[in-house]
């Protein structure tokens, strides 16, 4: 039985609608930073974004080429496994559908790779169909390095560690393989609405 914590009443109840705040989360207005190591600073003239792995032909964009792709402005709620949720965050990015347009693959999974060695794994169907972007702007400004700039993945329907910072590409894979946090005890899929925070959740 869940013990009552004597004397705990909680803050005034969340003003956000319950259908926007997953279980165990609280709403914050600021934008906390979480990362495993030093913030990388890759100069834009050395930056590329690459689609590789189980594809007919790898493809890669320079920063200029990437920024010339059609982009979308999206407003999304984001949910960090460390319990904060932030509502109505405004991003601009290139849809992964755009990056995969015309790519022939039989892969079912992607492993995103990043500056700094960070990786995260996702089912391909979770980054296609208008569900994921490579975002380069936040709140109308270029994405700051500490928040993953110049560009990060944005996969808002999963816990935010899946929205890998400093993203440099996607490896398409026939088989799933755990990414960085997924090897260190965090859930392989990470659905906030099912509170899939850790292994076994």
């Amino acid at each position, binding site marked *: 039985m869940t*013990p009552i914590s004597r004397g705990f009443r909680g803050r005034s109840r969340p003003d956000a609608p319950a259908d926007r705040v997953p279980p*165990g989360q*609280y709403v914050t207005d600021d934008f906390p930073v979480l990362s*495993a190591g030093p913030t990388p600073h890759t100069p834009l003239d050395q930056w590329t974004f690459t689609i590789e792995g189980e594809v007919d032909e790898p493809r890669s964009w320079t920063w200029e080429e990437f920024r010339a792709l059609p982009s979308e402005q999206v407003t999304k709620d984001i949910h960090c496994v460390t319990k904060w949720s932030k509502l109505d965050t405004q991003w601009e990015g290139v849809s992964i559908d755009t990056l995969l347009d015309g790519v022939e693959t039989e892969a079912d999974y992607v492993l995103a790779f990043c500056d700094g060695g960070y990786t995260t794994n996702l089912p391909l169907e979770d980054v296609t169909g208008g569900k994921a972007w490579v975002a380069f702007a936040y709140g109308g400004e270029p994405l700051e390095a500490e928040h993953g700039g110049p560009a990060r993945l944005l996969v808002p329907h999963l816990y935010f560690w899946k929205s890998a910072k400093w993203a440099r590409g996607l490896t398409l894979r026939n088989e799933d393989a755990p990414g960085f946090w997924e*090897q260190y*005890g965090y859930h392989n899929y990470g659905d906030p609405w099912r509170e899939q925070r850790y292994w076994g959740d």
Partner: protein
Amino acid sequence: MARAAVLGRLNWRVASVAEFVDETPRTRTLVLDVDGWPGHRAGQHVDVRLTAEDGYQAERSYSIASGPSNGKLELTVELIEDGEVSPYLVGEARHGDTFEVRGPIGGWFAWDPAQGGPLLLVGGGSGVVPLRSMLRARPPDVSARLIYSARTLEDVIYRNELEALGDDVVLTLTREQRDGFHTGRVDADLLREAGVPPAQEPRIFVCGPTPFVESVASELVALGHPAERVRTERFGPTGR
């Protein structure tokens, strides 16, 4: 995943407050009895869940302060004025009160004695908490240096314990000057002077508020430490 099946789910466990220690005017260490606590590695954290009488629940994460060999679980919590959980843990909870914990969590910002040293630990404010767990886990043959920044002497957490470690601990105060203490932020000069040189290949752990960690981690890389040896944990101003 196979690993998940082996590890099993991290279940919520009932924790009761055995005792508490007021470390500073804003931080309190809670010593907890936890049913079936499986033990932890230095540097890991736990999720804490409070439940109100009407069933309302609030969850936050806190670093573990105790060393792995201590049977009890200790958390050191800093009061966040407009926070929801920390005012309860720092100001309200007393002997015998109960809540739930889940963990231990995290395998990256963690250190085992078997991994060896030397250790270079750099903490800002309550970021010293998981580093203290590492110092407690450290066997005598592993050298360590903690560089710890606090606002004032009064804000230094674990002061007696850290001062007993002598030269292994370097304290700097950012908001006051005191004899025998460094003054000012942890900058490149202090890291060069008091840190462990890159040639000794220290294992580096940096924990503190985001601007502190951003700055210290960048300086360490600039001093020649490989980025992959600099492990960080940050906390923002969000209501812990």
